[in-house]
């Protein structure tokens, strides 16, 4: 088959920063071509050029042998190349069918009137092809993340795209939804679709890709065929150095742990029931379970974000009443939330202010003292190595991994003894991930009691001393992480009995 997309010596700069330098990549029609690299390597910039978001670049783009230069995203869509966004956007008030057709209702419109039956007919057919269980007439607001992604894919099929790009498509999906997505990807490839795939998850990249291109600092390090690259080589090419084994297992018995710092008994709310667990000082407790099993809800309830229907929480052996995040903080608990953008930091504040935000309440002085706020920033400078290391930089403009570091610093500043991290490495690259793991381990060694919620089993197996597994709002089992394997944890997460 021929070339679907050919990029020749593409360069793009922002002010004095060169984001892409002489990028040459050829994507063959009907194949899945992965782009991998650390955050800031230039993947998003490249996609934005291909999808017409950046009209101002050097070099040439060819689509099925024809030179093109897209000025707007709409140009790209009309030419048959569309994007399934990293954070998928739908209009919740509209039906699935209208979401799929949004902006391209033309062929089902006569004299300004929309023929809904015909439109749903076509969108239903697409949903069927994607083996979706919901139909066009369903309200989009009731869909799960995985289903919303299917709507986004359906949208590109509706527009008869020949090339689609998927940017971190599995980041928010449960294992089951991920498997469904992979099935759909296979079907699409068989029907001749060309797919550009961007993901930090190297295992799925290796499993799915026909070809893999690695970007580092805006330069293509090379393109490899399926099976030509070993995982370790891949990481080395991405990061430019060998990483200490990120997923190296830590045995459960690495020393005695201290006294029980956080004890939860019979905790219940509308989304989970009767959860018990203890975390000791120096211990890392992992929370496993499928998306929707109630893990996030449990930790948010402990932190006072959600209403607690029943149950007791004790800190250092003393029962405490937690009705708000402020209460939880009073008892030395910190929550690093799953959704960084929504709950982790404030977009219009810079790094030093975001870090200081939870600390104002503890200070007796009502005035904002610039010196104190800067000193607090410097406190964690060595430990975290935020890039760019600038207290006046807007946190919103950092990469995901660096935003996460700011959020961690913010909560370390509160001197909390109990740290809850919900999906601490979601959407961050392998280099930042390995730093985060090292940090979590060193915090535990320093005596903090740590709870880690994660959808990535290798992550939980690498970090945790014990793993609590949840299924549909209930605790199924608590496992000691001693030669545990993924299958065992998954078995309980799917509701298997002990």
């Amino acid at each position: 088959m021929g070339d679907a997309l050919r990029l020749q010596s593409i360069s793009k700069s922002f002010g004095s920063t060169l984001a892409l330098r002489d990028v040459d990549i050829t994507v063959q029609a009907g194949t899945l071509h992965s782009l991998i690299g650390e955050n800031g390597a230039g993947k998003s910039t490249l996609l934005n050029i291909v999808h017409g978001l950046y009209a101002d670049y050097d070099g040439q783009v060819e689509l099925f042998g024809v030179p093109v230069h897209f000025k707007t995203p709409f140009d790209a869509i009309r030419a048959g190349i569309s994007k399934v966004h990293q954070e998928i956007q739908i209009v919740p008030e509209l039906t699935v069918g209208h979401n799929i057709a949004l902006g391209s209702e033309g062929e089902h419109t006569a004299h300004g009137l929309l023929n809904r039956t015909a439109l749903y007919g076509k969108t239903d057919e697409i949903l069927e092809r994607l083996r979706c269980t919901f139909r066009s007439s369903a309200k989009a607001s009731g869909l799960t993340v995985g289903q919303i992604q299917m709507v986004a894919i359906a949208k590109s099929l509706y527009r008869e795209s020949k090339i689609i790009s998927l940017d971190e498509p599995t980041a928010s999906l449960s294992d089951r939804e991920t498997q469904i997505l992979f099935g759909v990807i296979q079907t699409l490839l068989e029907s001749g679709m060309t797919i550009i795939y961007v993901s930090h998850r190297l295992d799925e990249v290796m499993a799915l890709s026909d070809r893999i291109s690695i970007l580092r600092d805006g330069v293509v390090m090379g393109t490899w065929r399926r099976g030509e690259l070993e995982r370790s080589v891949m990481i080395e090419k991405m990061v430019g150095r060998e990483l200490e084994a990120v997923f190296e297992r830590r045995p459960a018995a690495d020393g005695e742990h201290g006294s029980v710092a956080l004890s939860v008994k019979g905790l219940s709310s509308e989304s989970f029931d009767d959860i018990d667990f203890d975390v000791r000082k120096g211990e890392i407790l992992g929370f496993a379970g499928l998306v929707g099993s109630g893990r996030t809800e449990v930790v948010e309830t402990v932190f006072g974000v959600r209403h607690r229907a029943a149950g007791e929480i004790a800190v250092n052996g003393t029962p405490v009443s937690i009705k708000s995040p402020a209460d939880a903080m009073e008892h030395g608990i910190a929550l690093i939330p799953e959704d960084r953008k929504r709950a982790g930091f404030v977009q219009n504040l810079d790094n030093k202010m975001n870090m200081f935000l939870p600390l104002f309440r503890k200070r007796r002085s009502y005035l904002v003292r610039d010196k104190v706020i800067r000193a607090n920033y410097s406190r964690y400078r060595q430990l975290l190595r935020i890039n760019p290391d600038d207290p006046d930089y807007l946190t919103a403009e950092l990469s995901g991994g660096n935003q996460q570091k700011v959020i961690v610093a913010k909560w370390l500043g509160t001197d909390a003894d109990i740290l809850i991290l919900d999906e601490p490495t979601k959407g961050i690259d392998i280099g930042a991930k390995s730093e985060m793991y090292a940090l979590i381990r060193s915090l535990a060694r320093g005596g903090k009691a740590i709870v880690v919620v994660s959808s990535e089993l290798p992550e939980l197996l690498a970090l945790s001393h014990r793993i609590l597994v949840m299924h549909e709002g209930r605790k199924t089992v608590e496992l000691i992480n001693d030669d545990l394997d993924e299958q065992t944890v998954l078995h309980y997460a799917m509701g298997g009995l002990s």
Partner: protein
Amino acid sequence: MSRMRRVLLRREAPTLLALVVVVLVFAVLDSMYLSPDNLIDIVEQATINGLLALGITFVIITGGIDLSVGSTMAIVIVVVGQLTTEGGLLPFPAVLAGVGLGLVMGAVNGGLVTRFGLQPFIATLATMSVFRGIAYIVTGGWPVLNVPESFRRFMDGDIFGVVPIAIVILLVAALLAHLVLTKTRTGVYIFAIGGNAEATRLSGVNVSKNKMIAYMLCGVGAALAGMVLLARLGTGEPTAGQGHELNAIAAAALGGTSLAGGKGSIVGTLLGAVLLSALRVGLVVQGVDAFWQFIATGAIIAFAAYFEIVRDRLNVRR
């Protein structure tokens, strides 16, 4: 980045630029425009709108809006009017009573927004109507006449016969507002709430309380504006302040306060109020028909907003 560029990228830059352009144009048309009397007149004309706009800036930065400030003014005007006339209250206690009233009405707005979760636009649209009704009921629809000279001099006289007190009130209030917004915990919280209320709450901040403070400060601004107007006119009309909320929002928006919340400054708002006043005075001096003043005001708001978009684009490409 050069110093010039840094100045241009400041939030207040478009407002300042527009102000300079407006003043230059009118000065060329008529050199009297730059006379000290006329300049003082411009600022004096800006005091009432300026005081309203200061308060509303707090609310807008939290991501809210207050449409009731004009009606709050009216209540304060008639009540303080009656207190100083029939009540025989001295100026200072009367002003305290007025400020107290402003706080109460701000708290009503804040309560509707935080306690009952009403959208700020709807909550204050409701109180705009309710407060206006109260102002009419207080006087039975009649104006309060013959406000004593002592009160009029207290709020709108001149210090040493030169410096208008209203300007002093505006500048002192602006300085305090600026300090609260930039140098105190409350100021940081107000910006943080406008930027991301959920993340702010998860940082242990009492979001409701701080929103409440913003609405109450807004009420104080409206009360001060009302009392300056009462002193200036010498009569207290229950119809006073109608449409003032829009001028105040315009001044804040002109000064770079984002109606989406999270961005804004007192300096900008002050410049915005002075700009609107400079424009109006200039048009009057030129003898331009009053109807055209509306068009000019609208055009300058659109211009400043567009300049801000251009400026943000430059910022991104930094």
